[in-house]
């Protein structure tokens, strides 16, 4: 047996994976080679010390605190997911809205008119007018989307919107993560 082989066998010998035939050859080599015998002794010592090492135990109330922290974070996460989805939805719809309004030009005026309708003398008429404008807006928006789909600007703008939405999402996530982390350190 060479020193190289003996070294390789030391692992197996420590962990009980050594065939009996090899064991004899291994022991013969240790009788002859002082260096390998020393390594083997050192490894056995390490093995004995580490086997005897105790398990470190956490403070008495640790399990209670840890499970409470985990359960609370879970609940907080549930409370956050709903508003988060709502926020993302709202953001996407408003981006779509602004995008359509900008593209349709004329309906931008309609958006501005809507803001004024509370100050007009005839509230009902204004309301109806507003609703009508809104309806037209939707129609125009649909029309714009339909025509814009074939236009050259469509995909760049969609990419821009998607990109900004992604940035916004990432920032929200980072902020939330930080607040989660802060909540768990007590």
């Amino acid at each position, binding site marked *: 047996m060479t020193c190289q082989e003996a070294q390789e066998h*030391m*692992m197996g010998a*420590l*962990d009980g994976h050594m065939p009996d035939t090899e064991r004899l050859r291994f022991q013969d080599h240790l009788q002859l080679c002082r260096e390998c015998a020393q*390594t083997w002794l*050192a*490894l*056995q*010592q*390490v*093995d*004995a*010390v*580490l*086997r*005897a*090492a*105790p*398990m*470190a*135990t*956490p*403070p008495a109330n*640790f*399990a*209670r*605190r*840890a*499970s409470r*922290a*985990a*359960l609370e*974070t*879970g609940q907080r*996460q549930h409370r956050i997911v709903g508003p988060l989805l709502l926020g993302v939805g709202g953001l996407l719809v408003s981006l779509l809205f602004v995008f359509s309004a900008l593209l349709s030009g004329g309906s931008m005026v309609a958006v501005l008119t809507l803001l004024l309708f509370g100050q007009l003398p005839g509230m009902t008429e204004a309301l109806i007018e507003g609703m009508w404008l809104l309806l037209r807006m939707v129609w125009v928006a649909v029309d714009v989307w339909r025509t814009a789909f074939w236009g050259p600007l469509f995909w760049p703008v969609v990419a821009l919107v998607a990109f900004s939405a992604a940035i916004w999402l990432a920032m929200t996530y980072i902020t939330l993560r930080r607040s989660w982390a802060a909540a*768990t*350190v007590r």
Partner: protein
Amino acid sequence: MNDPDMAARQHQERMWVEAALAGDERAFEQLVAAYATPVYNLAYRMLGDPAEAEDAAQETFIRVYRRLHTYDPSRKFSSWILSIASHHCIDRLRRRRHRHVSLEEMPPWKPLVSQAPDPEERAVARDESARLQALLDDLPPDYRLPLVLHYWYGLSYNEICEVTGLSLSAVKTRLHRARLKFADIMRARAPDLIPSAGERRKRAARKAPAEANGVGRAGTADAHRAV
């Protein structure tokens, strides 16, 4: 290994996981109680600082709770949870390296609560344990993890692969190098910790039954008995 005990425990854990997934908070608390010591010990052995270990162990349980729905019941729960804890500790060590915090700057050792029976023996064991930890901290984290998983959790090479995501040959190499390096460190820094031949035999005999408890030596077994 005591197979009927192991099977019963795995069955119990599976029940807890299912109940916790169904919203039973008590079941999750029992899982945490059963794994508090193994997870804490892993964090302590990897990070070397009791306060940081507590923090890391708590974070591990938060992750476990969040990812419980991804747990595959065909795997051993202990491997799954130790894997989450290991990865979290390695992440922390990486972040620590980026912050350039050296071992010397770390907080001083707090004494460990040992399981030795009488106070005198306990004090000696505590001191020895802290010194042992200081030596362990000198190993590179990549070597330390397989060593801790092998000695404190009695994991086989294959189980270490499952927990760490390393290949079998990588686990064998690292474990071997970790032992060699630990031998060097021990010889250089704590030659008095090296046991005599007689003591070695005595220790091996004493430790053998404790390991039959499976994961986490006496720690998990105690926790399970307490539940």
